[in-house]
């Protein structure tokens, strides 16, 4: 049977986490289809068809899908579900919002945040903030899954030849409407796909001190993240939060500045290849996972690091 991936997109292009989801889908079967539900979403559908491994694109192009409202998208997923053994979406706020609603409509127990695929019905997923990894087996006839992007390589954006096929829209459920959004604008790479991430915590003391980290980020081509404490204190916007209940990142290099290393924070970054911690408390738990720990006052250490990078890069 075929595998369906629900694409996350902005009507023009496909979001990167969808590419990792395609790789997870390809581990389940050869015939990977993609559902693009949007409004004026021809370019996104074309981009979906070009992804290596995608053999068919289902395009539902209608006003009610413009903002990906779950009340409208979930019935569409249900309507096209027949004939698929698995339906996957990235475990982003988009996938987490839409997929369980579709799962309930299909009377299926969704498997969230899958980080490994053992067989067509057996999956690995982190539980308890990643303090344990469960292997679970689903007995549902159709399996709905959200995929932890950091656990799968992204599929190539080119090389596929999936034909785009129109599917009928399911209409506006008339339950919720999109009013507006305040998206964080940044020239820097996206947090979840950046090769390098530098994050600040409560130790930063104020949002006014984050430019210190941004300067380093710009030298390294890095994204900037934060702990929950830094977000709660209003230093940076909510979408900077890394952790159990924020974003999960696994860059080549993660630099934690003024972050203690609570388990909820570690849950979002401990799969990074190399971890650096700068903290003035040599007992901070972050040092237990750091490859390179630097016990120092960040207000001295960060400018020093900046100067050193300036010199040697």
């Amino acid at each position: 049977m075929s595998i369906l991936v629900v694409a996350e997109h902005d009507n023009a292009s496909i979001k990167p986490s969808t590419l990792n989801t395609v790789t997870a889908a390809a581990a389940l079967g050869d015939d990977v289809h993609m559902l693009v539900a949007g409004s004026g979403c021809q370019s996104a559908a074309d981009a979906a068809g070009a992804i290596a491994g995608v053999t068919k694109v289902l395009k539902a192009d209608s006003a009610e899908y413009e903002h990906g409202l779950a009340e409208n998208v979930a019935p569409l997923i249900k309507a096209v579900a027949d004939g698929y053994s698995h339906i996957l979406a990235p475990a982003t706020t988009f996938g987490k919002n839409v997929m369980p609603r579709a799962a309930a409509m299909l009377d299926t127990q969704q498997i969230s945040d899958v980080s490994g695929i053992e067989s067509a019905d057996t999956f690995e997923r982190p539980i308890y903030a990643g303090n344990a990894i469960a292997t679970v087996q689903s007995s549902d006839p159709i399996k709905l899954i959200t995929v932890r992007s950091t656990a799968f390589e992204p599929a190539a954006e080119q090389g596929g030849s999936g034909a785009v096929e129109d599917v009928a829209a399911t209409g506006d459920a008339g339950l919720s409407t999109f009013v507006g959004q305040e998206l964080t604008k940044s020239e820097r790479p996206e947090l979840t796909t950046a090769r390098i991430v530098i994050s600040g915590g409560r130790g930063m003391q104020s949002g006014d001190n984050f430019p210190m980290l941004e300067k380093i980020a710009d030298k390294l081509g890095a994204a900037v993240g934060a702990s929950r404490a830094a977000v709660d204190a209003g230093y940076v916007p909510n979408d900077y939060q890394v952790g159990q209940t924020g974003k999960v990142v696994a860059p080549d290099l993660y630099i934690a500045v003024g972050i203690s290393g609570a388990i909820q924070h570690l849950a979002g970054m401990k799969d990074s290849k190399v971890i650096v911690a700068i903290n003035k408390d040599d007992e901070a738990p972050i040092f237990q996972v750091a490859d390179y720990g630097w016990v120092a006052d960040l207000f001295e250490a960060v400018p020093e690091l900046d100067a050193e990078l300036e010199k040697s890069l």
Partner: protein
Amino acid sequence: MKVLVPVKRVIDYNVKVRVKADNSGVELANVKMAMNPFCEIAVEEAIRLKEAGGADEIVVVSIGGKQTQETIRTGLAMGADRGIHIETDDEVEPLGVAKLLQKVVEEEAPGVVIMGKQAIDGDNNQTGQMLSALLNWSMATFVSKLEISGDEASATREVDGGLETIKLKMPAVVTVDLRLNEPRYASLPNIMKAKKKPIDEKTPADLGVDTAARVKTLKVVEPPAREAGVKVASAAELVEKLKNEAKVIG
């Protein structure tokens, strides 16, 4: 308006979770339990709604073993009016929980269901979305701001790119994020008062819901451990190591 708040009893978020030696699950014996932090935020939001005159009754409901009563009492001590305990020793999956909650909603007819976005044990992040689907209600997940006025509500959601605002037709299911509010501590007098508040007892069978598991846990293991590395003493040393040893910067 009546507000229904489903709350879950979980291992306290400060506890270091340990995997059982036989890999059947995590150690729950003699471990400190507490109300799921997101559920506390949901209870708090309901209380604020009532304090502001937007709600007249708050009902907390929880599904779980005998001791789940304690968690319901916690909600009552914070300020909820009464509780419903659906007792079962089985581990009920989000779909099963959603089906039980659907029955409770049908009996209680609340104007809104406010609940956690995620329970920090299974980290599923599903139940609210599922309940909303079963009821065919509107929903807002990951909410950091909620304003209900009459048969409409405005909800601000924390999404990956920033914030999004949607308008909901009431009744609705709302799942809350960390920054919606800061939950209060129950005062001693309120803890005493909570002991007298009623808790209705039911079972899944009473509600006619089949909660048989669809997903079987085959094993639970520790994640690969990360070793602590080395300490550096200067920026020069750190940059040198990142360049030549770890080879992660150019």
